[in-house]
């Protein structure tokens, strides 16, 4: 694995290798001394052009548990806010010898550009680009699904996963549809027609406008964050109406199969896409997702920089 830009670049074998590696690393770090020496002497830069404390911290912990040197380069308070371009920032990081750059950027394709414009030599991990993709989120979701519903082994063949919300603007949805379908899951996306992208019918998933129709056949349901500001642009009439038609409350939750799980990439809008009682329910796995995020990100950095596991692309 040279870069991780899109989950569409992973085949099932590669994706499973990441999940298996994450499981091994999770077991190894499940000790009082959590650190492994694997990436000692390597430098990982977290280059964040958008605020995302959660994702940034997750990557930071992942890199530190592998003993890498970690540099956090946030847009605010740095030269980036003084008008330095992505290119100049990249050249600076290159000169400082970054082995991997973890980038979060508001522009779709910025990680792709960073990886392919010839500015840097190191590996690039997409930590969320605009409304494009967020591959490590999808990997941690796949890890969580496999751990909870498949005893932590194999692929997700036949698992029924429903993704609900602002698919149009969601990088989490894009990465998940690609990755989960590669792993064999049957994915359905649910949204009002205004929040579905053009061409969604060509995606490897089913599409419906009606959440109630798919609840009884969902082994897992993933609620996407919906920004209330979207109603300014007339994507839906009001937060209340969105919540009534697409929000997951306890009544809707009762229609899910007995052992179905509820997922959310965070941060949640309680009362909007998810009610507080559902968010705090025992079958809601948001805390697992966060914990698994560290393991999956360790696996990605390990496979990218460790080079000791064969078979990765």
């Amino acid at each position, binding site marked *: 694995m040279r870069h991780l830009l899109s989950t569409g670049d992973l085949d099932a074998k590669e994706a499973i290798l990441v999940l298996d590696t994450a499981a091994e690393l999770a077991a190894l770090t499940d000790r009082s001394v959590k650190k492994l020496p694997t990436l000692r002497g390597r430098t990982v830069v977290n280059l964040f052009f958008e605020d995302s404390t959660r994702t940034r911290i997750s990557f930071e912990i992942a890199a530190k548990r592998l003993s890498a040197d970690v540099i956090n380069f946030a847009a605010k308070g740095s030269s980036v806010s003084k008008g330095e371009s992505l*290119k100049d920032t990249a050249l600076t990081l290159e000169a400082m010898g970054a082995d991997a750059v973890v980038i979060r950027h508001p*522009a*779709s*394709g910025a990680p792709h550009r960073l990886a*392919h414009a010839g500015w840097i030599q190191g590996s690039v991990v997409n930590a969320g680009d*605009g409304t494009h993709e967020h591959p490590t989120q999808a990997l941690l979701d796949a890890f969580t699904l496999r751990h909870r519903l498949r005893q932590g082994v194999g692929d997700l063949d036949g698992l029924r996963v429903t993704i609900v919300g602002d698919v149009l603007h969601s990088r989490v949805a894009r990465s998940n549809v690609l990755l989960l379908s590669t792993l064999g899951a049957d994915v359905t996306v649910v949204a009002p027609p205004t929040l579905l*992208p*053009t*061409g*969604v019918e060509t995606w490897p998933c089913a599409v419906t406008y009606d959440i109630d129709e798919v609840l009884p056949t969902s082994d897992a349901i993933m609620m996407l964050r919906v920004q209330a500001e979207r109603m300014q642009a007339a994507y839906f009439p009001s937060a209340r109406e969105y919540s009534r038609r697409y929000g997951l409350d306890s009544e809707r939750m009762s229609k899910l199969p007995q052992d179905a799980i509820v997922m959310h990439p965070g941060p949640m809008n309680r009362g909007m896409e998810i009610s507080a009682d559902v968010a705090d329910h025992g079958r809601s796995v948001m805390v697992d997702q966060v914990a698994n995020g560290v393991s999956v990100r360790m696996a990605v950095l390990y496979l990218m920089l460790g080079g000791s596991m064969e078979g990765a692309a």
Partner: protein
Amino acid sequence: MSDLVLRGVRPLGAEPVDVIIVGDRILDVVAAGTASATRVIDTDGLIALPGLVDLHTHLREPGREDAETVATGSHAAALGGYTAVFAMANTDPVADTAGVVEQVWRLGRETALVDVHPVGAVTVGLAGVQLAELGAMASSAAQVRVFSDDGKCVWDASLMRRALEYVKAFDGVIAQHAQEPRLTEGAQMNESALSGVLGLTGWPAVAEESIIARDVLLAHHVGSRLHVCHVSTAGSVDIIRWAKARGIDVTAEVTPHHLLLTEELVRSYDPVFKVNPPLRRAEDVEALREGLADGTIDIVATDHAPHAHEDKDCEWGAASFGMLGLQTALSVVIETMLTTGRLDWAGVADRMSIAPARIGRATRHGQSISPGSVANLVLVDPTQTWIVQETQLASKSRNTPYAGMKLPGRVVHVVKDGRPTVVEARVVLDGAVAGSRS
């Protein structure tokens, strides 16, 4: 004794002849090898076309001389086979007064490689609120006849109506950049399945087509002529075809890049492919070629849009819209229209010289290759191919989408007003071969 003889040229691909030039005019066209002069350019069967006319060029001066100047853009135009270009108004300051259009016109006269016809802004500052002093620009030394807010759409229907009406007094034309602004807020690429996958905000075809539909109806209502800039969708071609069938006085242009390139190139996220209107689907490219062949689309115009390196060497979202086009336009038209049999040389001459000169009222251009015509000519070798290298173009900028591509056809000589401006693919200034900028 004549001043210049072009020996053995093939006008519009016909049998070879000698073209005799005296002063700025063609004196006679005689049997090949029979004319003599103080200066003879032996062309060995090159194709002769009337000098090309670009109705849509951005020369960036005044304001962005780091990206292009009237002089460097004129060099690129001459090397591309042009003898006249229309310089768009979205400079800084905007060309919305007689003073600015006269400045651009004068800079063109000083460079003297092509006739630079300034385009006047329709509205003050391109803001779409108040009409610019169209009449003052029309009666200035620059003799403006084409008015456009290009880069921005005249979206206010009432204002568009008034502009269409007002310019009738001096035989002007409104060249509309058809882009419904609310449907394209934050738009980055063609709206399609691909934009959904790439996570780039879509630019729906309907944003272009709805404005064209409105404008042809407005033009019909007030009896004015309308020109549609850079048509990019199959639906736009249909609407214009419908309007022409109804007798509405509308003309339209297509860019070379919309005749050749598709949105698939956006997969690279390389901003060299970021352009307004965006690259569309293969079906649109096909419809545009068909429309250009059957005359629904009247002309090819480059929308030559130079941008400083830093405005393209960045992430997609931060990059400027636009591509270079002057030096590659004829080759792209040969590739897409001539070698495919959709147009012959007479058709190429019509779409790239005669029709644009007529629309822009550039009366000294687009004339037939016959005695009495102004001697504005381009001589082309259709058998040569070349590989586009961005560092070897005359433009100050490098944002060509064709870098590395092999294209057919080379401009060998250009004669403007009876005087060679390009000889052996090099610009000539005051009779001497100038070193081309690299």
